[in-house]
């Protein structure tokens, strides 16, 4: 796809579905928060203030303060890096590992395919969030293991996708030609086949980001991985939850809304990218 067609298609996709544009704007905003959160945040996210415990939203504290008097807006902004970082690392890892395993299975077939396929079936035999909990419990309760757990439960989707895509391309003319030209298996796979399956895999990945964010935040909501006082959306929602029965809604609503916004825009972006690459798949 040349750049002019890509530009035209992008314009078309935005025109057709203005929500994609909204998603891109929100994501840009989140990215800025993730990169420069520390500078943007009006207060220090960890500084407590005994005189302003659970203060409702005001001009001083736009999102109010939490039970320790910390500014919720600052905490929500600073948390962006950790939340997006966890989800992004997990998705990038499952993308890489899934692509490698899936391509090997699809290209080599035989026992490689059978073993890898069986492994993925086994992962899929668990309710995925439950497996993630089990993995974190076994490997240890920290952020790195949250990422590993999220990576493992996402792996089968990438692996199966890559396997199917490589499998149909393995015997196509250009792959055949590359083999006849004397290239090694790895070269045929990496130089000739994989570049062709990257665009649809990228769509998978962006559709998957929202889900990865939900998973990582869900794990920290139940108290795994991230430890207080680290600002993170899931844990902030869980801390704020105790004050719902007394009506202090801001402590859980704002971090929760940040989560929703992030997931929502990644889902929309994924849908937009899919329309861009393959207009027929629109449902």
């Amino acid at each position, binding site marked *: 796809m040349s750049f002019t067609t890509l530009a035209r298609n992008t314009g078309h996709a935005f025109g057709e579905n203005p929500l994609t544009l909204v998603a891109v704007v929100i994501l840009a905003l989140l990215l800025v928060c993730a990169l420069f959160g520390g500078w943007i945040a009006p207060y220090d996210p960890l500084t407590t203030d005994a005189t302003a415990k659970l203060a409702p939203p005001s001009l001083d504290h736009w999102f109010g303060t939490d039970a320790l008097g910390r500014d919720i807006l600052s905490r929500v902004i600073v948390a962006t890096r950790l939340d997006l970082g966890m989800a992004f690392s997990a998705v990038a890892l499952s993308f890489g590992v899934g692509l490698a395993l899936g391509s090997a299975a699809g290209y080599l077939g035989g026992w490689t395919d059978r073993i890898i396929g069986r492994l993925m079936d086994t992962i899929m035999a668990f309710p995925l969030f439950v497996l993630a909990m089990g993995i974190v419990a076994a490997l240890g309760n920290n952020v790195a293991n949250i990422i590993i757990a999220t990576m493992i439960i996402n792996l089968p989707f990438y692996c199966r996708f890559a396997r199917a895509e490589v499998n149909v391309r393995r015997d196509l003319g250009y792959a055949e030609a590359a083999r006849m030209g004397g290239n090694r298996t790895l070269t045929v796979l990496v130089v000739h086949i994989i570049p062709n399956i990257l665009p649809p895999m990228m769509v998978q990945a962006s559709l998957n980001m929202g889900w990865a964010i939900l998973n990582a935040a869900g794990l920290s909501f*139940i108290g795994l991985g991230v430890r207080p006082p680290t600002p993170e959306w899931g844990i902030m929602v869980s801390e704020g939850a105790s004050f719902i029965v007394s009506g202090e809604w801001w402590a859980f609503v704002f971090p929760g809304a940040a989560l929703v916004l992030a997931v929502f825009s990644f889902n929309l972006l994924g849908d937009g990218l899919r329309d861009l690459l393959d207009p027929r798949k629109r449902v």
Partner: protein
Amino acid sequence: MHFIWKRLLATIPSLFGVVILTFLLSHALPGDPAAYFAGPAANADSIAEVRQKLGLDRPLIVQFLHYVGDLARGELGNSLTTGQPVLKDLVDRLPASLELSAFALLFAIGVAIPMGVLAAIRLNGPADHACRAIVTVCAAFPTFFIGLLLVYVFYFLLGMAPEPLGRLNEILYTAPPRVTGAFTVDALIAGDMEVFRASLAQLVLPAISLGLFALAPIARITRAAMLESLSSDFVRTARSSGLPTSKVLFTYAFRNSLLPISSVMGMVFSFLLGSNVLIEQVFGWQGVGAYAVSAVLASDYAAVQGFVLMMAILYILLNLVVDVLATLIDPRVRFEG
């Protein structure tokens, strides 16, 4: 029948894989598993004793065979936090979780299928746009956040829902005698309508929060499947033969859409069983999920392992049931399988 047997056999490798994976996970525990299982108050002697008792000094394969043997006898070890056998803990709490999931599933199916059908019939009409909006929004809301929002609105603001603290207000009501373990069902069996209403009231919000997340995939696939069958030749033929619209829609189009809908149920169950954990946490629901969360936080690994294993087996069985139902819905599956 042949198909069902074949499908039953096909679950064996999955079960085997699940058992191997949970076994390996327990060996990935950081540090010395014997020290881990001996608990925090252990000394060198008691650790050595635990190591021998658990057979951790023997080769991995021997340990695995023992593990399988223990499983076959329903022996999942003892929980460090409750001091009870893990199996007993889980069996005590499972009905609460199943009750919650079942109501959530009923809610999700009850809303999503009519919504998907309506969206497909009135393609690009207001119902279709509404369906698309609801699906997009539901897919973006974390279950625990929906749960908390509903608590805020219906308990704090409107005062319509009971306090989100468990399955029954134990101060006002006594739990019905245990038959199935699900309070709503047991109350009905005992003929106690007051307790039934009270436990149902506790159940409504958690079930809806859990169901909303499962709603999105079901509505999406229903719409897509209905569109597909509505544009097929057999529906056109049925229409042109002058059959009444309701017959065309339900007997022809909808019945053929059931197969793709049943194929998405596996994913829905995975969602439900996983999100159950989060919702139980939000509503103080005393099910297996809440039990597992406190076990994870207390590093009570035997309990976590038992929970993961039980959920995986449950999930495999649910998928089995869906596949068998699919053959009843659509005979073609039997031949393809």
